[in-house]
C-alpha cells in the first residue's frame, strides 16, 4: 500500500472550498462549515491541509468555556496566554493582524449550546478577517441554524458524504500497488462505503496478488479470498 493521502471527492471539495475562502474578495465573509458523518476523514483532511498550509487547529472539548477557548487559540498562535480575558482577545487580534492564519474549530457541536463562545468566534472573524472554519458532525448545520447572523457568514458549506464508486476507484488507483479490475472495484464498493473498510479490502487484494503473482486482481479473486477467510 502506498503511503499517500488519497484525494477523494470529499477531499477535493474541501480543498476547493479552502482555495475559494482564502482567495475571495475582502467583502465576502471568510467563515466555513464542514460537516458529515463520523469516519469520513474530516479531521484528517483538515490535518492534511494544516500540515501543508498555515493553519491553526483547535479541538474543542465538551466543558470548554469562552476563556478556555481563547487560551487555546493564543497557545496555538505561539504566544503565552495572559491572565485577563480582554488581554487574551487582544493577543489573538495582534497575532492574526501580524500573520493571518485560518482557524479550524473541530467538534464545533460541543459549542453550539453556548452562544457566548460561538459569538466570540464570530467576533474574531469580524475583527481580524481571518478565515474561521467549523468542523462538525452530521446535523451541525441544523444546530447552528439558530445563530442567523453566523449562518449568513458561512460563504462555504461542505458536506462530507459516503464514498462513491468513483472514490473507491480513485483510492484503489492512488494507494493500491496492484491493478484492480472494474468488477473488483464494484465488488469492494458493494461491501464497504467507509474509508477504513475499503483500505482493509485493498490490503487483502494486494496480499492475494503477491501470493499468486497476479498483475490484476478481479472480483473472482476477491470472492475466493473472502470464502477462504470464512
Amino acid at each position, binding site marked *: 500500500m502506498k*503511503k499517500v493521502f488519497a484525494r477523494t471527492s470529499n477531499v477535493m471539495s474541501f480543498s476547493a472550498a479552502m482555495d475559494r475562502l482564502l482567495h475571495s474578495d475582502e467583502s465576502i465573509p471568510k467563515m466555513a462549515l464542514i460537516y458529515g458523518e463520523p469516519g469520513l476523514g474530516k479531521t484528517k483532511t483538515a490535518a492534511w491541509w494544516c500540515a501543508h498550509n498555515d493553519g491553526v487547529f483547535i479541538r474543542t472539548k465538551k466543558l470548554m468555556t469562552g476563556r478556555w477557548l481563547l487560551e487555546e487559540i493564543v497557545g496555538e498562535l*505561539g504566544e503565552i496566554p495572559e491572565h485577563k480575558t480582554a488581554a487574551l482577545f487582544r493577543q489573538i487580534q495582534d497575532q492574526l493582524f501580524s500573520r493571518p492564519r485560518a482557524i479550524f474549530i473541530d467538534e464545533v457541536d460541543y459549542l453550539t449550546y453556548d452562544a457566548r463562545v460561538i459569538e466570540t468566534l464570530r467576533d474574531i472573524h469580524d475583527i481580524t478577517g481571518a478565515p474561521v472554519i467549523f468542523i462538525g458532525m452530521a446535523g451541525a448545520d441544523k444546530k447552528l441554524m439558530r445563530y442567523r447572523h453566523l449562518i449568513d457568514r458561512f460563504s462555504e458549506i461542505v458536506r462530507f458524504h459516503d464514498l462513491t464508486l468513483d472514490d473507491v476507484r480513485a483510492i484503489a488507483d492512488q494507494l493500491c500497488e496492484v491493478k484492480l479490475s472494474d468488477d473488483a472495484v464494484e465488488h469492494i464498493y458493494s461491501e464497504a462505503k467507509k474509508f477504513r473498510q475499503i483500505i482493509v479490502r485493498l490490503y487483502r487484494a494486494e496480499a492475494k496478488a503477491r501470493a499468486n503473482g497476479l498483475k490484476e486482481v478481479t472480483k473472482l479473486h476477491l470472492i475466493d479470498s473472502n470464502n477462504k477467510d470464512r
Partner: protein
Amino acid sequence: MKKEIIAACKTFGTQIYTISQIAGITGIARPKVRYILRNLETKKVIIRFAEKTQHSSKKGRPWKEITYRNTKNLGIVERHTAENGWDVMWKAVRILRRFTRSDLAAICGQAITNVIAFTKRYCKSGHIRPNKKDGREVLWILIKDPGPKRPI
C-alpha cells in the same frame, strides 16, 4: 565561553544579578562578560533591570554596575532554517494526537524512513509513545505537548 555565561545566568532563575556576580561565578574577565551580556540584551534574551554608577575609592574613573534579569527565552535555541518535513510532521502529530506511522507519512507526504526517524527521536525525548512494543500498525500517542514550535 557564552555557554558558561548563559549557564551562570540561569542559576539566578527569576532573581536579578550583576555583571560582577557572573564574572565571579564563571571566572571570566569582566569586560568579556559585559560584552556577552550586552549581546544577550540586544537579542532580548535578558533585560536590563537597573544600572548604578560606582565611584572607586582610590584612583580611576567611575564604572557602571549593571543589573540584569532573565527572560523565558534564555537558553532557547532559535531556529534559523526554513520549515522542513519534521516541522510538518510535528504539526500533524499535534492535530491527530493518536496516529500510526502510515497516517503521518500519508498526511505529511514524507518518506516512511523519515517518519520512523521522527517517531524514534521524539519517543526518546518523551514527547510521544507507542501503545505496544512491536507489531503491525503501532498507534503512537502524543503525551507531552510543549506547543506549536517543534522542540529541538
